[in-house]
């Protein structure tokens, strides 16, 4: 690799927190150390020091860590500055790095450099990206698990089963003159079944993990003053944590990420689906409908004291048929009613009070269930789309394989492709490895 420029970024999540970390990587680390820390740093040792600006004045006090390459995260020289978490201090520190010749890192650039310097394999690199992206505690836990290689291990055990089966099939094809019955048909069938079931379990766990990473997308709709804001605040809960708060381009759409039982939920608040009055609003509504089309679920909030309005029915009528809708009847505190979930003709209605919090737990459960979340998080894998795709491809080939139990060369082809799909996640397995397995298990050869 050619020597590259030096990159810097805030390594901790944006927002207020106890500490904030600036990470710098590249060939000009010496200048950063000289310009900010003003004392030589021993490698891989935490040093409590002052961080200084261009005039020599202290910006902050904190811990500086120097990792000379290649024994560093990126494989390049890396400097980490652990300061206090305030956004102003972090911005000043970052600007100081830029003054000294660094540039702001692109998203994922540290990881990409680590990857290009052979510090990470593809799965690990992607896990790190996931770790950085993880917006909730559970996602962070799952990201760590995948990084540790548990995901890779589970795939590996699946591959081991597949190899067992392939060994028998390939031995039958390549060594027809041996007296060994490599493959009893019933045995092969049951092994294939077991492998298929295991793959399905992994795929299921990965889908859940994918949900964890991507989060669910919820559209919140309803007439003005039915209590959308109070519902949002109520669901966000106390620990929460609005992680990001991105205003839409118009006053009509607000996106928020809240935590629902550990799953990030992107909530699009459709402030009003009224008739467009002016251009700006029409644009906003256009975006709202785009958001609705991408959503997993719509919450239609209805004032229980007034019942469903004709405007609500209009909204329902205009929704895409595939979008699942949950009716939420709010303000039961004003009615003689208890919180409840009703299922009628495929439609779900939840009775709650955003004001008192009654029924909010029921609503959370309904949401999680509606997007297919049914686990406590144990054994989940933070799979990327790439992993899911590979697993699904393997699944398709295993299904095809089951159709060809008596045409061994086609069975073999499907099993090969299934394994190749899985190897995209964990790495190579060659035909020579396969032959090695055959020779180590069976006495072959004249």
């Amino acid at each position, binding site marked *: 690799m050619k020597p590259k420029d030096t990159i810097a970024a805030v390594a901790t999540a944006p927002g207020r927190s106890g500490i904030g970390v600036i990470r710098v990587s590249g060939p000009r680390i010496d200048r950063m150390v000289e310009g900010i820390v003003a004392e030589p740093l021993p490698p891989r040792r935490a040093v409590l020091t002052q961080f200084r600006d261009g005039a020599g004045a202290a910006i902050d006090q904190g811990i500086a860590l120097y990792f000379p390459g290649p024994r560093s995260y990126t494989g390049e020289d890396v400097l980490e500055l652990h300061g206090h978490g305030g956004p102003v201090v972090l911005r000043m520190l970052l600007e100081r790095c830029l003054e000294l010749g660094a540039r702001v890192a692109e998203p994922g650039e540290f990881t990409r450099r680590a990857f*290009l310097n052979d510090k990470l394999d593809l799965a690990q690199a992607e896990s790190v990206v996931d770790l950085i992206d993880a917006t909730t505690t559970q996602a962070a836990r799952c990201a760590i698990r995948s990084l540790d290689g548990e995901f890779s291990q589970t795939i590996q055990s699946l591959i081991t089963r597949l190899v067992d089966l392939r060994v028998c099939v390939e031995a039958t094809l390549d060594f027809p003159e041996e007296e060994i019955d490599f493959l009893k048909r019933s045995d092969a069938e049951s092994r294939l079944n077991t492998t298929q079931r295991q793959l399905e379990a992994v795929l299921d766990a990965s889908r859940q993990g994918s949900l964890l990473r991507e989060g669910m997308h919820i559209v919140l709709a309803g007439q003005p003053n039915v209590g959308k804001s109070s519902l949002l605040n109520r669901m966000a809960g106390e620990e929460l944590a609005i992680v990001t708060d991105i205003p839409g381009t118009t006053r009509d759409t607000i996106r928020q990420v809240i935590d629902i039982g550990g799953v990030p939920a992107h909530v699009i608040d459709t402030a009003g689906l009224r008739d467009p009055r002016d251009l700006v609003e029409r644009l906003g509504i256009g975006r709202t409908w785009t958001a609705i089309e991408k959503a997993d679920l719509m919450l239609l909030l209805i004032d229980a004291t007034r019942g469903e309005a004709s405007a609500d029915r209009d909204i329902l009528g205009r929704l895409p048929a595939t979008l699942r809708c949950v009716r939420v009847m709010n303000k039961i505190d004003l009615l003689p009613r208890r919180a409840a979930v009703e299922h009628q003709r495929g439609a779900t209605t939840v009775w709650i009070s955003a004001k008192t919090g009654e029924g909010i737990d029921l609503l959370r459960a309904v949401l999680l269930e509606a997007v297919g979340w049914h686990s406590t998080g144990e054994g989940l894998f933070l799979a990327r789309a790439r992993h899911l795709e590979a697993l699904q491809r393997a699944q398709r080939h295993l299904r095809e394989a089951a159709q060809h139990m008596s045409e061994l*060369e086609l069975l073999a082809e499907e099993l090969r492709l299934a394994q190749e799909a899985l190897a995209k996640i964990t790495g190579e397995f060659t035909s020579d490895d396969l*032959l090695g397995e055959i020779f180590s298990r069976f006495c*072959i050869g*004249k």
Partner: protein
Amino acid sequence: MQATEKFDVIVVGGGHAGTEAGLAAARMGCRTLLLTHSIETLGQMSCNPSIGGIGKGHLVMEVDALGGAMASATDEAGIQFRILNSRKGPAVRATRAQADRVLYKKAIRARLENEPNLRIFQQAVDDLTLDADRVTGVVTQTGIRFSARSVVLTTGTFLSGVVHVGLQNYQAGRAADPPAVSLARRLRELRLPVGRLKTGTPPRIDGRSIDFSAMTAQPGDEPTPVFSFLGTRGQHPPQLPCWITHTNAKTHGIIRSGLDRSPMFTGVIEGVGPRYCPSIEDKIHRFADKQSHQIFLEPEGLTVNEFYPNGISTSLPFDVQHALVRSIRGLECAHITRPGYAIEYDYFDPRGLTSSLETKAIAGLFFAGQINGTTGYEEAAAQGLLAGINAALAVQGRDAWCPRRDQAYLGVLVDDLITRGVSEPYRMFTSRAEYRLSLREDNADLRLTEIGRRLGVVDERRWTAFARKRDAIEREQERLKSTWVNPKRVPVAEAERVLGQELEREYPLADLLRRPDVTYVSLMTLPGAGPAVADPQVAEQVEIQAKYHGYIERQKEEIERNGQYENTRLPRDIDYTNVRGLSVEVQQKLNRVHPETIGQAARISGVTPAAISVLLVHAKRGFAGHKKSA
């Protein structure tokens, strides 16, 4: 002394690699010299007297499709022919024949002696002549210098060969032949990377001392299969069966008691033997719980009494060999005519070769056969043919021909060798070929004969026959696509008889043939479907291509996807230690192999996908600054 005759290509060695190499170069119009230490042993089958088998039969068909000698010589010498895996799909079916050693040698020698551009000379080769990094010729044992622009070395197990029987050993090229010690020493001086391998043979047995009534006969297939695309049954000599017997507990006891005098188990032999062709002592040691092993008694020929007991290859001392043979059912009174032995020999790390089988170190020098760490007549013949072709192309100033993995087993063989090297004698299996469904015996001619014609190795007779077959297949496929079967014109009973169900709508015949249980022959009996083609090879091809259609299409897509890697060339003169982003391990591996393409690099063991990404990035930038300093 300088020989007066001038040659374009010199082939050293007259085994299966050497004969195909010499014949191919000569067919391409090059003045070719074949040097052998003994004209009597041209085309010798030094191990078991059989040609073909799974994966190997595929190679033989490819050699044949490119005009080589092995398949047609086998048709003239074969005394038992079988199709292995005949009840499995066409991709894994393979032809195998027992050959009469005498007839096979005769058939090969006749081809060599009748090839117009080929000269044969009996003399061992001791040295190569070089001009800087380019080969210019060879020097024989008696100092005769021959010059040529390309030299193909096919020295088999002769390089520093050592034969072991028990703890005794002696230098030999194979039993009863002298080794090539001087040449081996000279090659070692050239600092080509060299390793040591081992292989072995069983003792031979006098057929008059075998009790066949205690064994199971294994006759050839009926009708008798034919090897060559141009062959006929009429060429076959009279046919003989093989015989099957087994080892037993007593045999295993005798072997165990002799292990203390085994050169393998006492560490006298350092070379690595093949796992798929283990000695009997190795089988009994590694699979101790197996009570009995199968042994095939293969006739060595019509005019000799010797039998080759396939399955008891051994290097145990002769007294142990004698006792173990006699412990086997049917061999109680057996007379051994030649002892079994193991042989250790030098091979050159094939990672030092390009995909044309030319050495990277010395231009114009090609290696083929066991010298590259392979085993088997078929693997040798295939490499010999390729080396001969490329030696001739180099002389003619034409681009080398490097078959791809998706084109031929020959491509798989060479790519495996040059990217992964060998850790044991390399043998072909169908599981090595990821495009197995496309690489079949039955379509070897369709895959390769046109290429062979352009290269100049396919003669007029083969070309005419091939073109006729190819055109007939295309015509029939076209007819099946354009002939529609209308349910109104096909009686329900007829549709049910042929298709197993009623025709629900109009279909072209081609679609009906893709259905799993419909054969070409049965489909042609459907009213309005005929007439069928007369040539069974054409009918077979039409049917197989229809059955595998979906798979072949999918493999084509896979091949296209990988095309980017295969077509991205890596410069020869990169010093990978200068390429940042690669781990030291990967740098070392790439520096050892110097892959020609990213595809080859990806197949080197230990080269990670991350490293391949790095290489792709650098390849885009043209590896600026990474060239070796001159």
